């Protein structure tokens, strides 16, 4: 784990600093393969919102076997889409990251059991976990609950789940959940644990840049955030056209998916963007959720210190 964090630290530092000189070029590394999860950014790109803000944005998707940190190591991205818990771990490791746009207002993390049992009762079970880096809070919570899961990192979590090679898998309610649902193997909601409904509903995806980049390019960062937010709002208002755009991207990136899955994914991603208190699409990091993530990860040793809300803000 230490090796992983060191590598990730070096990667993000290298990537975000190397590219600091570019004025109009803005490279965004997504967290995973092309899908409706990134619909707002595709829309901003396709509808010219970035161009209107004077930005030339490139969207980079990692290969399935690549951890998001590994991708950041190689290219010259200014920004990366990271789950809040992973961003906090990077900050804790010494990489000052700031949140420039928070899209998710709820946790999408789910644990789905293969044979119908409540995942919270599967002590010692083999649980597949994605390389996309969204499972930090789930790992902490499992440890807190003394579930002693055997985590199986994989790029084929759904395949392992289907074959019964694992007893459960960690996933996201907009992605792995629907992919498993379309296998017909999960026939009851009791086999699904949703963090959104538990004590640790911690918001996930947001866009992060290094603090130094943010300080040297405040205008570009602000324009990028504004255009991306406009992309998401347009996507929420035009789901069918957005879906057409998403399908063009997934075909371009040769993703094994179908329109139905992407339609469900888009609807779920947009739902998770609604603030649980206000019911609005807030696009902001919540201090209480940062505190909650601190409590969870500090309690299980994933954070050595508290990462404050102010540290994450520009």
């Amino acid at each position, binding site marked *: 784990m230490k090796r992983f964090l060191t590598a990730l630290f070096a990667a993000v530092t290298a990537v975000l600093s190397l590219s600091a000189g570019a004025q109009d070029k803005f490279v965004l590394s997504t967290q995973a393969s092309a899908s409706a999860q990134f619909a707002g950014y595709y829309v901003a790109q396709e509808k010219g919102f970035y161009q209107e803000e004077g930005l030339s944005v490139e969207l980079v998707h990692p290969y399935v076997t690549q951890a998001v940190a590994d991708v950041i190591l190689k290219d010259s991205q200014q920004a990366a889409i990271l789950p809040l818990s992973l961003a906090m771990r990077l900050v804790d490791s010494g990489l000052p990251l700031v949140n420039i746009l928070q899209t998710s207002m709820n946790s999408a993390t789910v644990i789905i059991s293969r044979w119908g049992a409540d995942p919270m009762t599967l002590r010692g079970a083999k649980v597949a976990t994605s390389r996309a880096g969204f499972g930090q809070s789930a790992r902490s919570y499992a440890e807190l609950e003394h579930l002693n899961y055997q985590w199986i990192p994989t*790029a084929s979590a759904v395949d392992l789940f289907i*074959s019964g090679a694992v007893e459960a898998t960690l996933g996201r309610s907009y992605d792995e959940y629907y992919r498993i*649902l379309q296998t017909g193997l999960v026939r009851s909601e009791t086999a699904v644990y949703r963090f959104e409904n538990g004590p640790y509903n911690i918001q996930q995806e947001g866009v992060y840049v290094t603090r130094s980049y943010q300080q040297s390019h405040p205008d570009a960062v602000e324009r990028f955030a504004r255009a991306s937010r406009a992309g998401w709002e347009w996507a929420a208002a035009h789901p069918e056209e957005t879906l057409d755009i998403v399908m063009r991207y997934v075909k371009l990136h040769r993703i094994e998916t179908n329109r139905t899955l992407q339609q469900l994914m888009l609807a779920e991603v947009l739902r998770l963007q609604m603030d649980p208190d206000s019911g609005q699409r807030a696009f902001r990091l919540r201090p209480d959720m940062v505190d909650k993530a601190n409590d969870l990860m500090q309690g299980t040793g994933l954070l050595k210190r508290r990462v404050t809300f102010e540290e994450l803000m520009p």
Partner: protein
Amino acid sequence: MRKLLTRLRRSFSARLSLWVVLFAALVFLSALSYSSLAGRRSVKEEAILTATQVLENTSLRLSHILEGVQTSADNLEWLVYRHLDEPELMMDYSRSTVQSNPFLNGCSISFEPDYFKGHHYYSAYSGYVGDVLRTEQEGDDDYQYFYLGWYQLPKLLGQPCWTEPYNDWEQDDTVDRQTQMQVSYCKPLTDAEGTFIGAISLDISLQWLSETLSSVKPYPNAFCMLISRGGSYLVHPDAERLFYSTIFTDGLVTPNPELDGLGRAMQDLSEGYRIVDVHGSRSYVFFMPLKTTGWSLGIVCPVRDIFSGFNRLRQISLLLILLGLLLMFVVCFRVIGHAVKPLSDLAVQAEVIASGHFDTALPESTRPDEIGVLSRSFGHMQDSLVSYMDELTRTTAERAQIEGELKIARNIQMGMVPRTFPPFPDREDIDLYASMTPARDVGGDLYDYFIQGGKLYFCIGDVSGKGIPASLFMAVACNLFRVMGKRELPPVEIAHEINDILSEGNEQLMFVTMFIGAIDLQTGEMDFCNCGHNPPVLLGPDGPRFLDCKPNTSIGIFSGWTFEGEHLSGLPGTPLFLYTDGLNEAENLRQEQFGNDRLLAVLSDPYEGAEATIRRMHAAVSRHVGEAEASDDLTMLCVEIKKKEA
């Protein structure tokens, strides 16, 4: 439509033909329905048999391919274990394995990180890119194969297995993604202690597999599908569904319990068939599991395909039946029309006869059936009709002659009563008017008047009965009155004389009521004798009133009867209105009589002369009678002796 129905109603042959055809249609359609049901059942059983055989053959064919892959994996495993200390040989083995097995698209022999010294990654891979077989060590930081399913599955399961479909491409690949979709047969490699050291993986191109099975078509639109353990389409003719969708995908948005049920049955490795909507088409899906793989093979046969031949045959049968029925209608119509043609001819001839040509010849019929009998009966009827018409012609002529004679008799009768008004143009003191309207050609009423010896003799009478007898009796009575009056006899004597003459030899017991009066034109005194007649009305200054009369009997009944005469003075200036019972007993359609009240009411109007009074009375009684036929003769006479000026 209305015209057609009218023609049907009018044409016996068309109506009968229609009933025959309708009955035949009922029989034919019942037979067709039964044969359709039986035929459909038979076709279905045949389809099940055919599809099951095709399914079994396809399963055997597929099993042969998959077993070939498994055998290749076993052979490769043996080679790998013999040369675990020579990693460079793994490249040759993977290449030769692909080359020796035409079903394979690729082969990898992969090891745990750092299994070989100096090799953190070691994955010997051979695979086709287009038509070129490429061999390389493909593990690196970008492609960390040990996180992929084909490597992890045998590691975690500890036994050989088949993967779900996956797309084995690298980011810089430019090959069409569908050509890269594959499934892999994976086998774990372990060391002597049983520790996992790596995995071998043999890949089959799903594109190739799908093309291989695309020829399985027991029906034109039937297709073969292969479902993985996770419900994915491993073989499917729709490129959009192949690999990327599962049998449950559509049901995520629009629940499809039938298709979901089929998917679960196939997933549970059941065998059988179901009828479901597959992508909008009602289809029979026959399915059976492929042992050792966890996959299920299905053949989808659209219902319309299975029953297309049967449906076409049924449609042709239906068309033939309809044409047959139409032909039957035409034939029936013609045959029945020919059979009933004598009736039509008879009808035409009947029309001709009805128009007056009674001697028109009827068509000869020698047929022994009912139509022949009818034809001959009609001939007899025509003969009778001709005879009847001759008789009718004769009697009509006779009747015309009688009517002519009656007309003459009427003229004679009317000539017997004075009809010239004013009757005494040189006498300004007499205003007299009379009218007689027989109910038939000749009537039994009478009136008369004349001046004789300074007196105005007048009478009005009504003979019992009607018609010619009454008119003859009236003529006699009328002549007798004139004869007796000319002898200047007083009215009572006139009554005696007429009664004696008429009652003698009166075997028919006919009689006549009469009112006989004689007014002295000098004094205005009136003698009168009422012989059973309606009392006249005096139109005095106090209004009309009936004249009080003695109750004498009618004339002609009792010979030698003594009549009582009466006398009335002060008549000048008081008109006298006489009438027969045809006035006050005139009935309307409701059989209400005109009556004395209406009579007096009409006479209550101001007196405007004798003629005006009678015309007004005529109009009143005509209004009352209306459309009713006159039941009795109507005779009225009005006379006024005007007062002499002082």
